[in-house]
């Protein structure tokens, strides 16, 4: 009893519990699927089967093993997502800066930002493809568009959250507008900026994979749709699903780690007594 109690207080208890429950449910599902003769068994394969496919040395297209193939495609998707994410972040930040500096820009731009965000990606993708005529560029642009909005809105919120007193201090120091931004506004908005990045990083990855499925070429999404259509082992499908989930979570955590490194003041606690 006391062991259980101590376990339940542990930091990782929840995580471990969820993983264990997930595995149990999955395995029950896989056993049920295997028992019904009509559905192909690899619609929900046993986890052991997926792991086996990961370590297997059998080539599936004559030259590459399943894992090599997935990783090669992942590289293409991630690098596109990364470029899009970078462009979207830069544009989002700069637009937030202009919106905070010039009220008119905010009044003009803000409503349209909302609208861009509301168009479904699957509707936007063919349009952008028609404009750019290049699927790789379109994928980057879509990742950028999705990144752009959370970064711009959160950064703008950060600029607006700067206390009135800080503005007044800067006025009393006779600071220039440039100093106001470099010394006060931009450093103040960093935590908000990172909130935006944490939302948009996994979105850029997800969007990249989703837009991949629309056209051929190299990319996780392309491979995913081939695997779904049965042109490739179903195990490749499951490998991609797990890898994508991992990349998404990792991209979120990575933003947190970068913030942690850039903001040393956040981790120092121990308040002094009066």
């Amino acid at each position: 009893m006391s062991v259980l109690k101590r376990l339940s207080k542990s930091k990782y208890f929840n995580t471990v519990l969820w993983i264990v429950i997930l595995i149990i449910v999955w395995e029950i599902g896989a056993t049920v699927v295997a028992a019904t003769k009509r559905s192909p068994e690899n619609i929900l394969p046993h986890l052991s089967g997926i792991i086996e496919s990961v370590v297997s040395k059998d080539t599936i297209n004559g030259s590459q093993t399943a894992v090599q193939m997935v990783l090669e495609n992942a590289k293409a998707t991630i690098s596109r997502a990364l470029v899009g994410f970078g462009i979207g972040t830069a544009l989002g930040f700069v637009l937030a800066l202009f919106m905070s500096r010039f009220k008119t820009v905010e009044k003009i731009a803000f409503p349209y930002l909302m609208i861009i965000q509301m168009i479904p990606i699957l509707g936007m993708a063919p349009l952008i493809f028609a404009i750019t005529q290049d699927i790789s560029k379109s994928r980057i642009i879509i990742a950028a568009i999705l990144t752009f909005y959370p970064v711009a809105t959160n950064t703008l919120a950060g600029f607006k959250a700067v206390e009135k007193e800080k503005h007044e201090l800067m006025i009393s120091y006779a600071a220039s507008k440039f100093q106001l931004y470099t010394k006060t506004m931009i450093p103040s908005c960093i935590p908000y900026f990172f909130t935006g990045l944490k939302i948009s990083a996994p979105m850029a990855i997800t969007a990249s994979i989703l837009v991949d499925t629309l056209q051929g070429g190299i990319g996780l999404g392309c491979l995913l749709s081939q695997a779904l259509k049965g042109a490739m082992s179903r195990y490749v499908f499951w490998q991609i699903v797990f890898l994508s989930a991992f990349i998404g979570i990792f991209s979120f955590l990575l933003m947190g780690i970068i913030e942690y490194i850039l903001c040393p003041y956040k981790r120092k606690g121990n308040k002094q007594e009066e």
Partner: protein
Amino acid sequence: MADMQNSNVEIMLKDIGMVYKTNDGHDVTALTGVSLDIQKGEFISLLGPSGCGKTTLLRIIADLLQPTSGEISIAGESPRDARLSKKYGIVFQSPVLYDWRTVKKNIMLPLEIMHIPKAEREDRAMKMLDIVGLTEFANHYPNQLSGGMQQRVGIARALAIQPQILLMDEPFSALDEFTKEKLHEDLLRIWAKTNKTIIFVTHNIQEAVFLSSRICVLSPHPGRLSAVIDVDLPRPRTMDIKDTPEFTAYVAKVRNSCEGI
């Protein structure tokens, strides 16, 4: 401008009025007919209940607000020129420190803005830390400090630009009584040492009597100067003075002049 010949007058307010326009077009008079001469090196308290315009008056002196009527001069200059030549140090009710800067760098912030060379910035920041007694916390971040220590940093930062006038807007009202009393003594010590003119906004009568050389009582609806009381208690003042009949008499006198407000 005849008063200007008196070289000891630091701040001259003449018939200051402030009228706001509300959203539905009504005029609200925040201040009316405030005239006051403040001598160099005085410790002036602006005392009154909320809504009496004491903070408004402070902000007008600081050139954060423009009065709608009246004249104001800071040692012969306009408030704007005084602000641009860094004559004001401001301390707010909250310390308004920069989380991402260490204590020392917080104090160096205004000096960076003034383009003061790095060596002198460091030097001045350490001197200010010494004055407020926080030398050993130079490399701490604000969130590691107690409320009282944070407010000390705020004062050190205001003093760092070597202003002639220190403007304080209820700087201790968020602190507990013990911390407040300690900071009162510290502030008087700093005032004696640096010889600044201090304008101190408060709604606490005891605080005003203990600190000030002169108390300006303001009353609301509309905000106006209703009494000016000299406080001739001996200096240096320590906590013990609060137990003397003279102190109690001043508190009673100030309270009487606030009554009926």
